[in-house]
Every structure is written in structure tokens, then in C-alpha cells.
């Protein structure tokens, strides 16, 4: 057995570092270990790819539109504000 200067990441460790990796918050060493692991581990590559797919899907979500009652109330407030000359409620 030779001693390795930097131990390999396990899959179990990698899944806890995915967000730090995607956010660019890993140290240079950890980033290297992370990327090295991905070169030989198909399963973790799948995992990271799925994380990216989740983020892409989240980015496609649009929020439900504003409820009509709330919108009407706000529009009425805006009109009131306008009549007040921009200085708040009359």
C-alpha cells in the first residue's frame, strides 16, 4: 500500500459537495478531487447530471400569476397614489 497525498472522494462524500461545486465554492484541491472522481464514476456523473436537470427544470418554472382580487386592489391603490400627487395617500 502506498499512501496517497490526497484521498479519493467517495460517492457518499461527493453528493454532499455537489452544491458547493456548482456554486463554485470548493477549494482548488476539493474541486480537483471532485472532478477526478467524476472521470471514473459513471454513477456520480449521472447524479450530477440529474442535479443540473433539476436546476434547468426549476429555471423553466414561472410563478403563478397574481390573483385578480389582489391585482385589482393594488391597481386601485396605485390610482389613489397618482391622484394624491405622488406624495402618498391623500
Amino acid at each position, binding site marked *: 500500500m502506498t499512501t496517497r497525498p490526497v484521498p479519493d472522494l*467517495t460517492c457518499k462524500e461527493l453528493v454532499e459537495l455537489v452544491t458547493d461545486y456548482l456554486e463554485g465554492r470548493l477549494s482548488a484541491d476539493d474541486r480537483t478531487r471532485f472532478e477526478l472522481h467524476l472521470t471514473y464514476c459513471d454513477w456520480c456523473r449521472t447524479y450530477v447530471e440529474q442535479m443540473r436537470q433539476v436546476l434547468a427544470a426549476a*429555471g423553466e418554472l414561472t*410563478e403563478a400569476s397574481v390573483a385578480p382580487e389582489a391585482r385589482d386592489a393594488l391597481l386601485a*391603490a*396605485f390610482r389613489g*397614489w397618482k391622484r394624491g400627487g405622488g406624495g402618498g395617500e391623500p
Partner: protein
Amino acid sequence: MESPTAPEPPPDVAAADERELQALRAGDESAFLALVNRHHRAMLRVAALYVKSGASAEEVVQEAWLGVLKGLHLFEGRSSLKSWIFRILVNCAKSRGVRDARAVPMSALEDEDGPSVPAERFREGDDRWAGHWTEAPEPWPDARIESGEMAALVREALETLPAGQRTVMTLRDVDGWESPEVCELLGISEGNQRVLLHRARSKVRGYVEKRLAREERR
């Protein structure tokens, strides 16, 4: 209202804000409605961290918009318009939260334990494969990813998250907020924000995986 710690808006944001402000101050209703449409849902979600009921959150957001209108002529652009609006919101929500006798959202923003992937998915023991997958994560079929079904599953998954995690992930990954904006809004550290985001994303991935696997077997 504009705290000295607020990050200065980048020039492109500042320029867009300035155009928007001019339209708002001139009484342009469509500009106001566009602003409401852009932020209202996220405001409701943030308000819900501080107050008890959905009805209270609605009232807080309405109150915040009135505060925005009142302050519109005072806004000086030292922060972005968005972060100014949300700061007003959080102030309204906090005072309402105190009146509702609800503790401030620290509980919602606390970390909770638990691994990102269930421990039984990994090998135990001290052989060379310890900590590696016992069973591979199955790649998701392209057809299902591209169908828009993924987005629907992610939406469902977000609803199952604790409020703090849901808020952070929705602001970051749905609304496209930057990490410093989220930290400033919620008054949490960057590290805490990242932990919440990580827990949220990991759970959402797990939820999607479970749902897709269950349906593939049918």
C-alpha cells in the same frame, strides 16, 4: 429605508431601475402591474416565513406595496429597486409577525440533519468500495425530461420542502436571484444559505427520482 450594507446595483440594473422608476413616478399603470407581476408571488412566499396564515401574508404584501408607493419619490437608487422593495416587505412582515406573536423565521431557516441521499444507497464497511453507491442512480429518460414533466415534478417537490429551504431554492433557482441578494433579504450568512440550498436541491432531486422510478415500473 436603504441600509448602508445593501449591495450597490450593477450599472445595467441601475439603468433599468431608473427607466422603471420614471414610468412609475409618471403614473404608468402598466409599469406598475409589470412590477407587481414580477415580484408579488416571491413576496408572498417571503412574507409567509414571518406570519402565521396565508391571509396575513396577503395583507403584509399589500401593505408593503403601499409602502413602496409612499416611498417611491424618496428612493435614491443606492440599492436595486428589487432589494429596496423586499426590504420594505420584510420590515412589514416582521412587525406583523410580532403582532401575530409568531417567532421570527429563525426556526424556518435553521438547518436540519440528514444526508442528501439516504445512507442505505451507499456501501458500508471498510473495503475499498465503502461509501460508493450500492445501486447506480438510473439516468432519467430524455423523453420525460424534455416533456415539461420535469418542471411539474420540481414544482411538486418544492411544495414538500420546509419553508426556509423552499424559499431559498425558489428565489435562487426559479426566480434567478443571486446568492448575496438572498442572504441580505433573509439576514443569513452565505454558508447558511448554501446549506439550505443544498438540502433543498438534494431533496428535490430525490423526489423526482422516486416519482420517475415509480412510474417507470408501472
